[in-house]
């Protein structure tokens, strides 16, 4: 049988790490082939090589049986290879059409022929049931739509091989279903798909075959129909993985966080959060589920003081903190693991020890009379490093920019937990981390709960919410659309509510 893509014995080294070590993989015409592996296993690197973004150190690529060298994305395009990146590569103030034709513009004399392009895009969109408006501005359309624009981009370039790098991380369960359908459509039209994902369920649901990669090496390729999720997970990590979090039953205690009818302005001049009320008690984890951009950011920023509150009130331990400063909130026992560890969590050019006192540098013993006490700061950092197993090149004096994402995250979690807060707001605490790190951080969050603290968990990963939470609040368009007990619900129900199909009462 002839393969559309064959990658043989690919090797790619980055300074200090072999990202791809003698990897071979092939793709049949009309199949969906999944790539599975931990963070840093080398999946994206492999696909970047196929797409011409990296040059392999060694190895061979064949397309439709012919050996090729792919030096840049243009060559990949010409060979019929297209790629949807996890972070969409779209220009926000361009229209859909402009984004799609960029790099391959139809011309009419000297000028761009936008009309012809727009017509062709409309046709493609209809053919593959993508439902995209060619004249909309990217900044005005939803994330799901943006992804479909990315798909159109490939189709517009007549790609036969489509690479999806973690396409579902940003979608709602319903959008994921849609995407699966679109992928099936595509394969029926004769396209072949390479799909990178961490989600075993999706592989099970959509893929024909699955290649597992660990530490840059291929562990094996399996027919998906012949295997199950547990087996694939074991291949991936190299040991048996428990999918459930150990969590004792426990009665929640005092009311810690009381949000009452909170409204917050969003980024586009409309209310991002509307009349939102929620309570979190001591000793419980409340999960906030919702599709990205439905008001989670506004809620968290309003709670932590990063954003102004329009109306409503917030009480922490029965004290009104609606108009308190960030510092006051921290001091009254609120801790915050931010969504974006690079933007908010760390000063990347500061050393690890400096980052560990980011909120308490002005307290004794870390400083006295305006002068920093480096010994105390060092001791503090060393303790967190030890307690939370933070690994870095030079210990406390490592510049955080040089640390791996997982360790950066562990450091932040360590710092926040070390404040011994009554309320811990954890936003996407495991984003982009591999299974091992995720397990660890989940354990620490549950520990907080078990020791009688309140935890508000905000995550786009439904699995994470379902696993960790005692109760789940669902947010849609800035409004609370439902509140369910984790033990009494399932993914489907929460997914529907996330899409805005509410479920009556608040328990």
């Amino acid at each position, binding site marked *: 049988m002839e393969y559309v893509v064959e990658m043989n014995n690919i090797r790619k080294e980055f300074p200090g790490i072999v990202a791809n070590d003698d990897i071979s993989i092939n793709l049949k015409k009309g199949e969906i082939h999944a790539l599975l592996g931990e963070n840093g296993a080398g999946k994206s690197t492999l696909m970047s090589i196929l797409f011409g973004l990296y040059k392999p150190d060694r190895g061979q690529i064949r397309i439709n049986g012919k050996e090729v060298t792919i030096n840049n994305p243009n060559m990949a395009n010409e060979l019929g290879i297209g790629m949807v990146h996890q972070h969409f590569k779209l220009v926000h103030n361009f229209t859909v059409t402009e984004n799609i034709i960029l790099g391959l513009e139809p011309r009419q004399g000297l000028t761009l022929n936008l009309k012809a392009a727009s017509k062709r895009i409309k046709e493609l969109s209809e053919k593959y049931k993508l439902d995209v408006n060619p004249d909309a501005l990217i900044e005005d359309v939803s994330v799901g739509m943006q992804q479909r624009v990315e798909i159109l981009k490939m189709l517009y370039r007549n790609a036969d091989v489509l690479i999806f790098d973690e396409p579902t991380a940003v979608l709602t369960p319903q959008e994921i279903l849609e995407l699966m359908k679109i992928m099936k459509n595509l394969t029926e039209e004769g396209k072949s798909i390479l799909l990178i994902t961490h989600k075993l369920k999706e592989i099970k649901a959509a893929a024909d075959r699955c290649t597992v990669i660990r530490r840059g090496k291929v562990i094996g390729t399996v027919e998906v129909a012949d295997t199950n999720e547990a087996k694939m997970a074991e291949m991936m990590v190299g040991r048996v993985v428990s999918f459930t979090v150990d969590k004792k039953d426990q009665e929640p205690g005092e009311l810690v966080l009381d949000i009452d009818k909170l409204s917050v302005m969003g980024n586009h001049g409309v209310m991002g959060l509307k009349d939102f009320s929620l309570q979190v008690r001591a000793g419980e984890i409340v999960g906030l589920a919702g599709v990205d951009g439905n008001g989670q950011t506004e809620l968290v920023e309003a709670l932590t003081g990063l954003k102004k509150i329009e109306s409503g009130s917030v009480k922490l331990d029965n004290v009104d903190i609606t108009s308190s400063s*960030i*510092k006051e909130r921290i001091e009254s026992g609120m801790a915050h693991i931010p969504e974006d560890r690079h933007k908010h969590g760390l000063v990347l050019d*500061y050393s690890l020890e400096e980052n560990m006192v980011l909120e308490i540098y002005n307290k004794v013993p870390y400083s006295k009379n305006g002068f920093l006490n480096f010994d105390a700061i060092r001791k503090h950092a060393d303790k967190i490093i030890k307690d939370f197993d933070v690994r870095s090149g030079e210990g406390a004096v490592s510049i955080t920019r040089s640390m791996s994402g997982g360790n950066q995250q562990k450091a932040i979690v360590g710092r926040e937990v070390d404040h011994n807060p009554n309320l811990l707001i954890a936003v996407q605490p495991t984003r982009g981390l591999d299974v091992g790190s995720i397990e660890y951080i989940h354990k620490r969050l549950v520990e907080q709960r078990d020791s009688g603290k309140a935890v508000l968990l905000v995550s786009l990963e439904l699995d994470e919410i379902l696993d960790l939470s005692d109760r789940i609040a669902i947010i849609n368009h800035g409004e609370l659309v439902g509140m369910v007990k984790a033990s009494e619900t399932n993914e489907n129900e929460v997914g529907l509510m996330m899409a805005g199909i509410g479920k009556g009462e608040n328990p």
Partner: protein
Amino acid sequence: MKLHINKQVLIGLISVLLGLIAGAILMAFTGNNPFMGFTYLFRGGLMNVGRIGDTLSTATTLILTGLSVAFAFRTGLFNIGASGQMLFGGLCATAVGLSLDAPRAVVLLVAIAAAFVGGGLWALVPGLLKARFNVHEVVSTIMMNWIAYWTIYYTIPSFFKGAYDTESRAISKAASLRAPWLTELFNDSSINLGLFLALLAVVLIAVILNRTVLGFELKAAGYNRFSAEYAGMKVNRNIVLSMVISGALAGLAGATFYIGYANTMKIGVLPSYGFDGIAVALLGANSPYGVLVSAIFFGILHSGKGFMNAMTSIPPEIGDTIIATIIYFAATSVLIEKAIDSIRKKFKKEGN
């Protein structure tokens, strides 16, 4: 034996070397002997105590403007307006020097304080605009430079007119930063008490940046305003404060220049020290002690180029060309860094 030199220092030294080589090429190109050229250039800056004094007095102002730019850099700001701040600081110092009738020590202290405050005030505007409205400080400080230029242009003849409309009255000896004992020690050179002010500022700024809570906050706001905000720091206040401190340092530079190096304030001149400060800061890797060293180096070039010009037929612009080239190489230090790394690697391989 293991030679361990700080990479930044090495890059700086190599940049200087490359700049000097570029200068040498230009000298040779115009038919001059580069060796003679450099000999006279450095002799011009260092040949005798008088010249050393002149070098130091030029360096004094450069230390302060360099420090001003470097401090802004370290706190995430690009202060291109040191010239304007220096002008306005200088105006304040001159105003005090010309109008305050008090014992010398008092006059000097008040004049210095006025320059400090004046420079700070002039930087307050860009600071506020940046903090409140996110107006980029590069543009606003450029505008403030011109506003300072015209303010001095009209203020001097209106309030401090000297013999001519184009300059202020001369500062009296009592209100000048020049001290007779110092002037004599350095054989009548322009060296003045500002030097000690500059040295003090170097130490103070180093301490603030590296050892204090204030420095910790200001740097955090500069590196990443969002995480500083997240950590509960008052970011807007810190941005304004950084800009004001930077401006105040430039204001001090104005004092050392207008009531130290010079004794009158002339209108129609935007001092180039503000722009040279960028070069000084850059070559000094934005560290206070680095600024000190690079300012003295620039001081030597500045005061030596005239002598070189007198002794040979090399145009003095060569000095500026050398400085500009050094800055270009410092700005493109990635290239040098790569070269250093590959050389180090080679040595390591051979060593093993």
